[in-house]
């Protein structure tokens, strides 16, 4: 499986990271969901089904979490998707590019070995509480020590 990962920069003196990923999700009533996030290696994240009578939609998002010299905690949402009640419960997304620019506040992505990607979701009910749930399981993405210049994305 091809994994393309590089980053150009720095722009405005901040690191910009590029990540591509695959997501396989199976959201069925009452069954376990398996999400496979393939970057450098295959890791499976388990999601329990959540579409009950009071669920209007799910807001799914992939976020990268890491630490840098500048900031003790950074979280950047790379990709999101709204899943409405009644939508196809199986997601099979391959070679996805991040929807949003993965800018760091500074130069903390270079050589950062500990960037963790997790899938989380916000349950939006027809009425009631709005829980935010994080999937159990995550993928680590180590960024290289050097910058790449002019690589097509």
């Amino acid at each position, binding site marked *: 499986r091809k994994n393309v990962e590089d980053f150009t920069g720095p722009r405005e003196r901040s690191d910009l990271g590029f990540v591509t990923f695959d997501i396989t999700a199976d959201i069925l009533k009452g069954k376990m969901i398996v999400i496979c996030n393939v970057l450098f290696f295959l890791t499976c994240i388990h999601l329990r089904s959540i579409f009950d009578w009071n669920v209007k*939609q799910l807001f799914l998002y992939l976020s990268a979490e890491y630490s840098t010299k*500048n900031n003790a905690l950074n979280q950047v949402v790379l990709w999101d998707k709204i899943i409405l009640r009644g939508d196809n419960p199986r997601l099979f997304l391959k070679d996805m590019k991040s929807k949003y620019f993965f800018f760091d506040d500074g130069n903390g992505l270079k050589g950062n070995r500990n960037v963790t990607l997790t899938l989380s979701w916000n349950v939006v*009910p027809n*009425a009631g*509480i*709005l829980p*935010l749930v994080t999937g159990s399981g995550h993928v680590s993405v180590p960024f290289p020590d050097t910058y790449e210049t002019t690589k097509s994305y």
Partner: protein
Amino acid sequence: QLYYQVLNFAMIVSSALMIWKGLIVITGSESPIVVVLSGSMEPAFHRGDLLFLTNFHDDPIRAGEIVVFKVEGRDIPIVHRVIKIHEKENGDIKFLTKGDNNEVDDRGLYKEGQNWLEKKDVVGRARGFLPYVGMVTIIMNDYPKFKVCI
């Protein structure tokens, strides 16, 4: 007889006020109940929906949360989702927001030259919601004549 009615009315009004003030204290938010004014968070929230907020000081702001914030100098609360956070060791945090239904992030909404939001701009975090209930407020604002009728 009239005296009794006036007193009764005053009791009701002061009870409502006490409940509202109590809510402000319990949730820690200056405005624990807000009405969604725009369609920028559709299809989750529509104009007229009611949101219940909390604003506990120790609650960390994390990516993916729905926050209600006010831009410095403007009165209108905005309900959007946090998409980026950068937090220092001492707890100082700066974050970026974006409406689910918007193509771009909120930098265009912030003050001139402001690139990030801070904790002080937050009115609260959305914890619960009721659809449609807030429509009454919107109707009263859009049609002041209606307010006079009531």
